[in-house]
Every structure is written in structure tokens, then in C-alpha cells.
């Protein structure tokens, strides 16, 4: 690479303006994320950047105000349950679809993916009206079911990718040795696709944890999630506690996304 590359660069250098434009676009990508954390340590009671004095008052607010704490707890609860359901249901569907061919299977796969391209607001409004009739708005069950449905496509994609490298003769070998199908699945399939399942579960969790639009429609005074409380805090109250909440969410999501990387690197070193 080195010598040949250097020679090629001599003939065909990267123009300076391209580097300049690329740097500006990169800044545009990361700027909002970058300012979230310093913002949360500001002492001012108005939204301002850069902060003039530093303090922990917004964190203190966050961890002492029952409304914020309860919303955070609800978000974790909803996201864990929704991710659990989406992972079980989505993994089963991916394994099932992997064994099926033909037009119907293709159609069902598209159908299961459809919530990815459906505008969230359209789903939110339809779900809101139906859930009103079914008495599911403002309830844990309503949030969990809606978010589980949103998580399924992510599990489906990642498990299907993991199954792509799966050799089905292994299952036949296992069956010929007398293992019942469930045992074959748990002992043969599962260990091979576990990375895909974990990735899918993480995406399902984060999708739910961060979901705002449907959550806004399902909220009630007694049950709401953290993104809804954050939305309230910029629309009705202008409460800078959102800054502490924002940086907490960014940190939590980052840590959760780092989990599969850590698992991966540990496997490699073994």
C-alpha cells in the first residue's frame, strides 16, 4: 500500500478544498452531540452556550425530582420489556424465514420490515386512536407493546445477517444424532447466532429507550417516559434539567452500544 499509494497521491492528490468541506461536514455531524455534555454542567438557569459557570445543579435536580426519576425508571422498564419481547419474537421469525423460500416468505419479510419506512407520526396517530378504544394509552402494557413492534425489524435484520453464515447441515447432523429440534436450536443454532441476537436486542432496547413520537401520544399524567419528560421540559416548562438528562441519555446509549464491541474483542483475545 505505502509506496504505491504515495506514488498515486503524487499524480492524484486530494484537493485542499475537499478536505476543508469534509472537515466542516464532519463538524456539522458531531457538533450537537459535542455540546450536550458541557451544557449539562452549566450553572445558568437559561439555555446558553458556551456556559459561563460550572455546577452540578441540573444533575442534582434530576436525581432529586420524582418526576424525572420516575420517567427514567419507566423508560428503562419499558425498554427492557420491549427489547425482550422484540428479541424473542424477532429471532423466531428470522429463524423461521431463513428456512422458507418463495414469494410468500419474501412478502412476509417485507411486511415485518414495514415499520422501518412508515412515518412514525402516521403510526403514532393510528396507534393512539386504537389504543384509546382498547384502554392501553398511558399504561405500561401499551408502551411495551408499541415499542416491541418497533423493535422487531432491527432484530430481524441482525439475526438474518448472523444466519447468513450458518451451515444448516449442522442441524441435520444434530438431528441424526438424536437431538430434538428445540435442543438443536439451543445447542447448535443459538451459540452461532448469539452475536446477531445481542445486536438486535441492543437496537430494540435503544429504539424504545429513545422513542418520542408514539410515546408523546401514549403519555398520561400517571405514566410517561424520559423522552416525553424531556419534550415537556423544552415546550412547557423551559427547565434546564433537560441538559443533565440529555447527557445521561447520550452516555447510557454510548455505553450500551459499546457492549457488543467489548464482547467481540474479548472473544478475539480468547
Amino acid at each position, binding site marked *: 500500500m505505502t509506496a504505491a499509494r504515495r506514488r498515486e497521491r503524487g499524480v492524484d492528490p486530494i484537493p485542499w478544498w475537499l478536505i476543508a468541506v469534509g472537515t466542516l461536514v464532519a463538524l456539522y455531524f458531531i457538533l450537537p452531540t459535542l455540546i450536550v455534555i458541557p451544557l449539562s454542567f452549566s450553572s445558568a438557569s437559561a439555555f446558553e452556550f458556551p456556559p459561563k459557570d460550572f455546577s452540578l445543579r441540573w444533575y442534582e435536580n434530576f436525581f432529586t425530582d420524582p418526576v424525572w426519576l420516575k420517567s427514567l425508571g419507566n423508560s428503562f422498564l419499558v425498554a427492557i420489556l420491549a427489547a425482550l419481547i422484540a428479541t424473542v419474537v424477532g429471532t423466531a*421469525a428470522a429463524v423461521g424465514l431463513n428456512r422458507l423460500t418463495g414469494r410468500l416468505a419474501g412478502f412476509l419479510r417485507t411486511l415485518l420490515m414495514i415499520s422501518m419506512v412508515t412515518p*412514525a407520526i*402516521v403510526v403514532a396517530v393510528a396507534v393512539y386512536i386504537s389504543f384509546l378504544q382498547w384502554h392501553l394509552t398511558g399504561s405500561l402494557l401499551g408502551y411495551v407493546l408499541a415499542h416491541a413492534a418497533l423493535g422487531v425489524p432491527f432484530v430481524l435484520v441482525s439475526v438474518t445477517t448472523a444466519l447468513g453464515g450458518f451451515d444448516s447441515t449442522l442441524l441435520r447432523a444434530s438431528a441424526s444424532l438424536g437431538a430434538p429440534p428445540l435442543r438443536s436450536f439451543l445447542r447448535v443454532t443459538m451459540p452461532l447466532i448469539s452475536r446477531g441476537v445481542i445486536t438486535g436486542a441492543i437496537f430494540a432496547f435503544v429504539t424504545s429507550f429513545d422513542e418520542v413520537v408514539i410515546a408523546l401520544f401514549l403519555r398520561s399524567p400517571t405514566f410517561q417516559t424520559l423522552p416525553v419528560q424531556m419534550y415537556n421540559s423544552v415546550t412547557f416548562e423551559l427547565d434546564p434539567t433537560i441538559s443533565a438528562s440529555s447527557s445521561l441519555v447520550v452516555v447510557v446509549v454510548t455505553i450500551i452500544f459499546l457492549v457488543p464491541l467489548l464482547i467481540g474483542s474479548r472473544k478475539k483475545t480468547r
Partner: protein
Amino acid sequence: MTTTPRPRRAPRPSWLLLVPALALLAGILLVPLGQSLLRSIGAPEFTLEHYASLFTDGVTLTVLGRTAMTAVIVTAVAFLLGYPYAYLMTRVGPRLRGVLLVIVLIPFWTSVMARNYAWIVLLQRGGPVQSVFEFFGAGDIVFQGSVVGVTIAMSQVLLPFMVLPLFSSLGGIDRKLLLAARGLGSSPLMAFWKIYWPLSRGGVVSGLILVFTLSLGFYVTPALLGSPQQSLIAQLLAQRTTQLLDFAGAGALGILVLVITLVLVAWANRFGGTISAIGVASTSRTKETR
């Protein structure tokens, strides 16, 4: 998806595995959407008046037009910034390319509300963005509560959907063709226009359609950064549902938006790359968005 054909012995369990997922999808998505379709056509007595009034009430068409206009501007911004960025990604070494790719994905995994909050702070009156523009003598541009602010925030989060398909399409172009054109005496601009641009068009088209389609459904960003006087279609849909309780009218509008979206997605699919781009993006994070 290609798989080795399974032995014919056990087809039934495979179908059964799909039942829970289909039941969840049906209960949470298909039944509510079906119900709003039925409401919109006035079931049990069939009528198209709710659809007709979308085109005659004077508000819906104006808002639809404004939404389409915003989507066009967002798409144009994403294209103008995304094309050079994707091109730069194909030019640098593997390590830097990895860094650039991670940077593209950052807006995805920054929480929706955290990102919108950050934009409110950056774009507010007297905020940092306005100070920068003031410095260049353009201090009277209003960012928060205007289409400008909404466009800036929306383009940022939709840029990945432009960059990813472009990167996969630009990455497949042999640069030696450009060098050959230069060697034969062509100007750089001419070589780009005659050789590089036509080869990149597949990625361009799918990126354009994808960004345009996704920007039609944004709700949180225009609600927080825009102004109520300049609402977009998603806000109109929300308002008809929760404030006016016009469920039939909201149903008709929702179905209209859904049909427009699905038609555009199907169209983008024909250019390839789109579903795979969504796939890539999804394993890195999709939903806002919106």
C-alpha cells in the same frame, strides 16, 4: 436471501415461528392502520368526503406544499454536503475512512431529544450560530422558530441516509478512468462530469429519494424548532387528532402520507441500494427521527 434448501420433512414449524411476530405486527400496526383507513372512508357508509376535503379545505394543500418544499431544501442541502463527504471517504486511507464512517453515524445514536435540545441552544436568538453569522454580517437571519432552523437540524440527521448509499456507489468507481481522461487532455471538471458523475448516479438517486421521503414525516424537529404558523404535515396530523378530535379527517391525511411514503420507497427500491442502506443504517440506528 439465498439459503440451502431445507429438507422437506418439517415445513410446519418454520411457519409457526413467524406467528408471534406477525401477531404483534398485526395487533400494533396493521389493525390500527386498518381502523384508520376504515374511519377515513366513513365505514360503515362508504364516502370519500374526508379525502375530498383534504384538497378543498385550503389548509392541507398549503401545508403539504410547505412540507414538500422543506423536504426539497433538506434533500438539496444533504446532497451538496453529502456528495463531497462521501467522495472524501473513498479517497482517504482505511483508518481515516473508519473514523469518517463513525462520524457519519453519530447523529443516529445521539438521542432524539438530546439532539433537538442541542439544536435549540445552538440556534436560539443570540445563540452561537447566530453570532457566527453576525460576524459575517448576516446577523438578521432568524434560526429558531423558522424554516431555516428546521432545515439545519433535519439535514444533519438525514445526511447519513445520503452519505451511506453514495459511499457504496462511489466506492465502486475505478479512479483510473479519471486519470485516463486527464491523461488524454480532459480538464478535471470535464472528467468528473463525463465519467465520474454518470457512474455515481445510482447512489445519488437512491440517496435523494430516501432523504426526501424520510423528511416528509418529521414531527419532533419542526414542532420544537419551527413555528406553529409554519407547521408541517406531521404537526397538522397530530393537531387534527389530539386537538380537533377529527379522527376521520386525520385518518384520511395519515393514509395519504403513508401512501406517498410507500410509493416513494418502492420507487427508490428500483434503483437498488436503498433497502441495503436502510439495513446498514438500521444496524447503526434509524428511528428519529421523526
